[in-house]
């Protein structure tokens, strides 16, 4: 039992999740399983974003550019050169990582910070999207269809028959992503990232090469994001510049970590647990509204409207995210039960 205590709780949680979530396909129907898939999908992306956005303080408003690079790389390699999407995934990650390093270097080298950094990533991502609509070899704005394969194929990462396989892939991806996040945060990289976020000048005075670590942070974040893009291509079977490079993707990616808790290990997962079912719920309410609301039935836009309103409410009432709110409640609970309170902070 002592050995178990030495392994940090976060890793244990990952193991527990593997067991719990691994059994879901056995008793969830297709609808709920695909919901679970979506939750894990966005949680994974949220983690990827969090590495640069939450931990290093580099708020990216253009993560779609990395996502799209992953999607297009694996798809073009598959459609034009019959290369397995697994290899394509890797290639996409490398490409995105390099591009991310470039973007990170570009913006950091010239001291772009805060608001300007966010706007910069937004602008670069939009440029990438617009450029993608120009390029012939990726079929411009028409998009690319991933050829359908009969039955299941692990080599081609397509499962027409067994949906659960998609789920397992995403589950493993998510857990690996979670492990990567935990490992980074607990070690030198994570500490340096956070130092840069808290106070870059102080970090430099402690020997931290801010430029190098910012670039590393963006590169890692980008590579991880691209992998999810490749997965999406194989799941949705159609990509075009708007779907994979669009602003809405960037927004979706950053929503969950922020709502869940920026710069926390489990924030993106918790955020996805809340937001993804919420989005689904609002969508289903619009599809089949309760009788007193039947004027909204089938109306386009009501679901996003609701979602926007809920987003505002969540952010207003939980400014440090769900995890932060949870911590606050836990602290208040502890204080009430702690009768031998010690004086704070005297020296």
């Amino acid at each position, binding site marked *: 039992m002592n050995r178990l205590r030495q392994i940090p709780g976060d890793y244990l949680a990952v193991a527990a999740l593997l067991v719990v979530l691994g059994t879901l396909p056995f008793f969830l129907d297709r609808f709920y399983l695909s919901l679970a898939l979506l939750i894990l999908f966005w949680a994974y992306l949220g983690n990827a974003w969090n590495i640069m956005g939450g931990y290093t303080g580099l708020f990216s408003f253009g993560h779609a550019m990395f996502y799209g690079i992953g999607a297009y790389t694996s798809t073009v390699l598959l459609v034009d050169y019959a290369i397995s999407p697994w290899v394509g995934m890797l290639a996409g990650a490398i490409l995105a990582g390099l591009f991310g390093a470039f973007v990170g270097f570009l913006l950091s080298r010239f001291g772009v910070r805060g608001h300007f950094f966010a706007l910069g990533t937004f602008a670069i991502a939009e440029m990438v999207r617009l450029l993608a609509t120009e390029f012939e070899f990726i079929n411009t704005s028409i998009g690319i269809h991933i050829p359908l394969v009969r039955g299941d194929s692990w080599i081609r990462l397509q499962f027409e028959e067994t949906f659960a396989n998609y789920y397992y892939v995403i589950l493993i991806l998510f857990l690996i992503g979670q492990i990567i996040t935990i490992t980074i945060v*607990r*070690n*030198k990289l994570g*500490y*340096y990232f*956070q*130092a840069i976020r*808290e*106070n870059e*000048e*102080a*970090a*430099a*005075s*402690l*020997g*931290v*090469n*801010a430029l190098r670590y910012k670039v590393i942070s963006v590169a890692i974040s980008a590579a991880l994001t691209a992998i999810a893009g490749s997965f999406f291509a194989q799941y949705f079977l159609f990509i075009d510049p708007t779907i994979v490079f669009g602003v809405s993707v960037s927004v979706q990616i950053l929503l969950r970590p922020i709502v869940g808790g920026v*710069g926390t290990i489990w924030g993106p997962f918790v955020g996805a647990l809340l937001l993804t079912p919420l989005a689904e719920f609002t969508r289903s309410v619009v599809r089949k509204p309760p009788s007193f609301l039947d004027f909204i039935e089938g109306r386009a836009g009501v679901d996003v409207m609701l979602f926007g309103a809920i987003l505002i409410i969540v952010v207003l009432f939980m400014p440090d995210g769900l995890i932060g709110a949870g911590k606050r409640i836990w602290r208040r609970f502890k204080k009430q039960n702690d009768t031998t309170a010690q004086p*704070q*902070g*005297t*020296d």
Partner: protein
Amino acid sequence: MTPLLNLKGLTKRFGGLVAVNDVNLTLGKEEILGLIGPNGAGKTTLFNMISGTYLPTSGQILFEDKDITDLPPHKIASLGISRTFQLVKPFAKLTVVDNVMIGTFLRTRGNKQAREKAREVVKFVGLEQYADRPAHNLTTSGRKRLELARALALEPKILLLDEVMAGLTPTESLAIVELIRAIREAGITILVIEHVMKAIMSLSDRVAVLHHGELIAIDLPAEVTSDERVIEAYLGEEFEIAAN
């Protein structure tokens, strides 16, 4: 014997304003050199040039005979010169130990070593009680000690202290003085900017006086306090030198 730190003709100009003018200074091993001067004399600017935050307009900085004039702050820190800031810059959301770990990671291998070393440093500066509390919970005195701890975590050869006693009570200042002495015992050379005259006179082996960016005196504390030019520079400011 080559000095540990050698400033040659160091000058810093900001547009038309000359903040530091042709300063020549040497620092010997395990020496404590006090740097005093009226506000705006250029003391922090001098520090900023040594630590790499500012690029000197002209002049040279030699550390162990190596030219470090053009190096960026993180490089200089890794070479063995660390500093504290006048306005402390704690990593607010991280704990005290985590704060210091940012420093110890430079010289250790891996998480565990960095953490152990950090705890030692935290103990050395007397912040053991607050080791696992977030930095923003600390009082002013605590924050100053944290600033010190972080700088020490780099295992520096030279430590630059920028008004580390500002905002502290006389009792707290005395404690810091003892700490600084202990740091010198550990073999670290120290360059101190301070306004608390009693402290700096008792601590320093030598005292350098900066006025309008120029070095107007550098000598033993007793000599400096009776130097006419120094007294003139401080005219208009209240300052008392406690006799011994």
